[in-house]
């Protein structure tokens, strides 16, 4: 995925929701942002050849 096409807070938000549901309880904003960056990173960096 091209990083330039990322819309922060919109791209892969469904994955973030999925993770948040899996945790089973509310999470702190910092933890959520950290996890969201990891999700975006997986989308962009790890998909590069």
């Amino acid at each position: 995925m091209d990083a330039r096409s990322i819309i922060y807070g919109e791209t892969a938000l469904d994955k973030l929701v999925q993770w948040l549901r899996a945790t089973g309880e509310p999470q702190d904003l910092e933890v959520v942002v950290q996890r969201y960056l990891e999700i975006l990173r997986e989308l962009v960096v790890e998909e590069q050849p």
Partner: protein
Amino acid sequence: MSAPIFAGTPEQQALASEIFRLMSAQGALFAADAPIKQTLSNLTDFLAAQRKREREAMAHEIDAALRANDQVFARQEDTETREIIYITSRLGVYPTRREDTSHTFKQRLYEPDEPLPVDDISVVVSTSRPALTTVEPVFISDYWQQQAGMVSFPLRSTSASTGDFDVQELEQDRESEVPVLDTDKDTPVEPVVSPDVALDDLLPADLVAQDLPAQAVSSEIRTTVPPVEITNQELMSDIEEVVPGPAEPLVAEADEGITADRLVSEDRVDIVDVDAIPAVPAMTPSESVVEGSDEVVQADEIDEIDEIDKIALEDTEPIAPPAIFTLPDGTAIDLQQPVSKLMATHRVILEEALINRIDQDPLQRIVHFGRDLYTDADKINLGKNDLRRIRDYILEIGEPVLDTAIIADLYHSHRQSTTESFRFSLNYRLHREKEFEFVGVAGACLWSTRGLPFIGTKRVKASEMGHLTSYLVEGYDDSLEQQHGAQINEEGIVNRQITFFEWEHGILPLDASLATLLPQPLLSEQRSVVLRFDVPQHYTSYLVEVRYPTGNRGGWLQGLEDFFHEHLVAGAIIKLARTEEPHVFTLTYEESGVRSDRLLTFDDKKNKFVFANLSYECAVDSEQLLSQRKFGKLKNLKALPTPDRRKADFVLAHVFEVVGEQLGTRNDPLYWLSLDDLYVAYNVLRPASRPYIESLLAADAMYAPDEATPGAYYYKPVPEVEEIEEEEDTDVLVYDDDDEY
């Protein structure tokens, strides 16, 4: 369902019919062909008792009757209990059950009636290889690569303009730089052919990936270069010939062969299958000497050549696209960096941006309260009855209540009451209701509702207090000069002297020192927080409302009026300290012996300042103590109405006129007052800091510092000009022409 026809004597038919009726009733809910079983002993017991017959005779009659109707009643004998069992069904006949194995699901699954033909197996398993996704290389001009210092010399294998592979250029390069084997020599050593060395393997990967005409080139080169045969000596001499000049001599000892790898690595377009040269002596790895030459090539230099070639090859490889995206405010975020580093650098911006986006999500998949985020689908919904119960509970308690207390008292039996998700759901729901107000801090979610007792004094309106404390947000806050913020954070203690205004109204301006000590509001739109100040010296506690600054209005604490009046006087020093609870603080003061003095107070009924006898046992600063002996003039201060009290310059002039020493005359007044006394007297009417008062003094030309006495000021008001009404005598000025004439 028709009854079966029974055989035998009329008595037997009647008996069989009755037994069939009994057994049909027994299996009334059975399937029509389901077996209905009954033992002979049971039938005998029932019928013998009904007909009052002997059991033996009855058993014989039953058995005889049912034997006569064996098409209806199947007869079995239990081998273990020797019990005779009759079996029938509601159909009147008992068919022996047979298992139907003519067709099974298993059979239908593995042996379909219409199996797919073998040719159509591709429908299930694709035999074609899926297209591999290839990343197109990004071509960067040689010029720019050199400018950026990415390469030390221009690439030779690609055309600068188009990137196409140039065959002639390649051949020229080979002739100019590559050790070329002289095919004219005829001394045979071993045929050396290179049909297997594909040029593709030697070309940069991107050229191959671009599907450029490199393959055609390589095949052409293969065909144009015939197999050659060379000897060792020829090889050595050829190498000597092609070694470029003395600056970079490539030499080899005759007794140590040139390694195949070396020969290949130095020549990217070498077409010699060097693996097929076993007789060629290997070159020493460290240094090689050419016969008859003193020049020595160090291994480092050879490695340098390798490095250059390696860089050239690497530079032609596709460059990974940057993983940079931009936030709405333009901040670039590089995902190639570790997440921890990104968080350390851009945490605040990332958090704000994510919250803003989540709020704009039309599906509202994620909801948040404070810093906690949760999915909307997983939060627990609370109904109107829940809200009514919670509101009644808060009103019953009579003060703001923690969310944990609400859950413990109202939802202690709730199966999810202990989970964080329920706590989040409660706070999130109450936050969305207008009748509830969040007055908590991080770690202590306090909820208030309409109808609770007011905290603080009503004598000063909130709007007026915001105005009176605006000097704090205008840069005249000197509270951190005596106690640094770092020290407050470390110790969690603030020492503070209270002024008359603070004592009278139970209000503390929220200056920088208190703002450092007290917690910040949890929600962005939160305007107040309710804290509990425990007074261990008197085993009491007070609810204190913290009003935070908004815009150009300052903040303050209110609710300490009773404590101040009961235990302190103006000038006392109090100490505020944190506790383990984020919303609980301790309020203490230094005690001293009981003293009594005539101190300034405010008489509400007379609406004026008076001196009254007060006893106190707190330590005070004698300079700040408003005793009648020192500040006797203060009783003449006017309890200014709100509009006048808002005018800082008006209050300043009034204080000078009342408290200051009159040095002039009545017609030409001149007042003198020290800044210390001015500060004390000014803080009787409204809160102010010394820098703020000094700024007022400096801003008006009517105030001038006393050069002879540092820290003292003169106030020379402008004499009031009596307005003389000009009586316009219209009778004099205006005349009628008719009168004159």
